[in-house]
């Protein structure tokens, strides 16, 4: 187990390097010159001389590879640079906004789990009934409605008539509810359908009949024996969903004016604020790979038949 963990952590290094390099290249390839944008923002005339000065100040001289290596060297020492626009340290800015994003992600996750479990279990217990069809319809809606549209719908039809629900910024449950719902609803769709089919399959297995033959309560048969087995394939997908969750926060934060890192990233992209974009990508990728590592380890506890680290040394 220790060996496995060490291996997996070592693999993270090339993965993170790749993420940083690709992000760096993509920013480089997008049209728009950060120096020019800064000059325009500060009402300084865009002359070749001014551009050259600005470029030098931003550390934008030299070939891409050399700049990337410079950035990497500083990042390795914990210095992610300073935002072009605010002038603040990137790490500090990200850490200040991270709690808000994590709050939103947690809210979305809770909504997702609640919806997915209830819709999936109900649909599996009453297959081909009205309940199943309703669950299917809900899942279809969740999967096909883009979150920015869903967010606007929720604002129009829930928040406007309700005196309680808030649609702008941070501040307790009344603020968190709608963004979480927007984020969780779309993600829940896949899980509800997956859980339904996985649970239906497990319910056919002999050990479920054996559990019933031992006189166990139906709640125990479903909630413990069936669900535990049915959840194993879903956990695999969960690692991937974390990506959706983090990406989803970017859109939802925009719709609900949520002051998280997603909004910071969007603003940074508009401003060609390269250090912030790089920092954001680094953080999100790190969270993503760590969650996936945790998912892989949790397998072992969900399904004792899986032995970690035997074949996965590569």
């Amino acid at each position, binding site marked *: 187990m220790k060996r496995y963990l060490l291996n997996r952590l070592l693999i993270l290094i090339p993965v993170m390097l790749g993420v940083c390099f690709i992000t760096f290249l993509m920013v480089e390839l997008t049209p728009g010159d950060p120096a020019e944008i800064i000059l325009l923002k500060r009402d300084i005339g865009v002359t070749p001389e001014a551009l050259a000065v600005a470029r030098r100040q931003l550390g934008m001289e030299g070939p891409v590879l050399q700049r990337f290596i410079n950035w990497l060297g500083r990042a390795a020492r914990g210095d992610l640079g300073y935002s072009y626009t605010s002038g603040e340290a990137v790490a500090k800015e990200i850490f200040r906004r991270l709690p808000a994003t994590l709050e939103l992600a947690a809210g979305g996750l809770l909504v997702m789990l609640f919806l997915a479990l209830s819709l999936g279990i109900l649909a599996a217990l009453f297959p081909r009934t009205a309940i199943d069809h309703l669950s299917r319809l809900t899942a279809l809606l969740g999967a096909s409605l883009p979150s920015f549209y869903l967010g606007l719908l929720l604002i129009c039809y829930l928040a406007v008539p309700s005196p309680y629900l808030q649609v702008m910024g941070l501040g307790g449950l009344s603020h968190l509810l709608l963004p979480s719902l927007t984020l969780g609803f779309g993600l829940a769709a896949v899980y509800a359908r997956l859980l339904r089919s996985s649970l239906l399959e497990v319910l056919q297995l002999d050990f479920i*009949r054996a559990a019933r*033959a031992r*006189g166990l309560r139906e709640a125990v048969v479903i909630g*413990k024996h069936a669900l*535990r087995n049915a959840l194993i394939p879903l956990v695999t997908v969960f690692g991937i969903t974390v990506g959706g969750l983090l990406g989803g926060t970017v859109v939802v934060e925009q719709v609900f004016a949520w002051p998280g890192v997603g909004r910071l990233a969007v603003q940074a992209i508009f401003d060609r604020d390269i250090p912030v974009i790089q920092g954001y990508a680094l953080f999100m990728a790190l969270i993503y790979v760590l969650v996936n590592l945790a998912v892989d380890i949790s397998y072992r506890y969900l*399904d004792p038949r899986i032995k970690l680290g035997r074949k996965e040394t590569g």
Partner: protein
Amino acid sequence: MPQRTVLHVKGLSTSFNTPEGIVRAVDGISFTLQQNRCLALIGESGAGKSVTALSLLRLVPVPGKITGGQVCLEDCDLLKLPTAAMRTIRGKEMALIFQDPLASFNPVITVGSQFVETILTHEPVSKATARKMTFAKLTGVGLPAEQVYHSYPFQLSGGMRQRAAIALALALQPRVLIADEPISFLDVTLQLQILGELKRQLEENRFTLLLITHDLAAASTIADDVAVIYAGRIVEQGPLQQVFGRPKHPYTNALLRSHPSFGRGRRLEPVEGPSPSPLHLPAGCAFHPRCPEMLPCCCNAAPELLGAAGEHRVACYRFNTLGIKSIGTEAVRA
């Protein structure tokens, strides 16, 4: 020794309402189980053996439905019990062992905790006591209790798993143990061991065993009585020696001739013809299209199960009309 009837099944019928039509998987089956005795229910696959087992516990999967009859455990008709009361019977009064020993256990939960869970469902004991009971039961079937308790089912061998399944089924000292093809997934040496284990448990504990099998040799090693089932009906039943020694029904006869242990010295003869489709059972006696001794009346109505000699009963026109004499002569000879 006076026999004590534990379970009395009368006219049990179970059918499946499929899109293609109604399948009468079990069609008016009656038998009794006596304490400390073993009844073997013998038949080809698809004859309705397993559905009978599941019907006794009221665990027939949808779209199956028990359509009639009685299943009396002592004086209580299980088919009339409310669902919650039926649950207290399952595992506690009547237990089931499955064909695939892996199927009896949840693959992701340790063997021990599945014992404890079952015991705690039925008995008001502490977890520690349940644990102690589990150890005793596992030791009782010849397993290293400590090791098996903490194992997951996949970590045990097939034989150990089936032993553990027997221990689990007997954990609460049920009055009836139903073993549905308990040995057909095991290799031959293990088959004998497991049968031996069942026999030993039957001698040492107070319960009755319903052994469901297609294996005539297995039935003959352990059963006291046999019932031969064909297309959802019992065609012949009685004490083992009488049914296997002097089979009356042509189907029983054909089954015995097709088996190496009983057709000794002779060429083995398979039962001619295919098993009937459960959707389109032949009219009259369901066996008549394959029967070498068919009479004209066999196509009209199914024969009744009638007494031959003592407890030995058979459902066949040839026997019912012509065979009366032959009992007479046999009786004289005996």
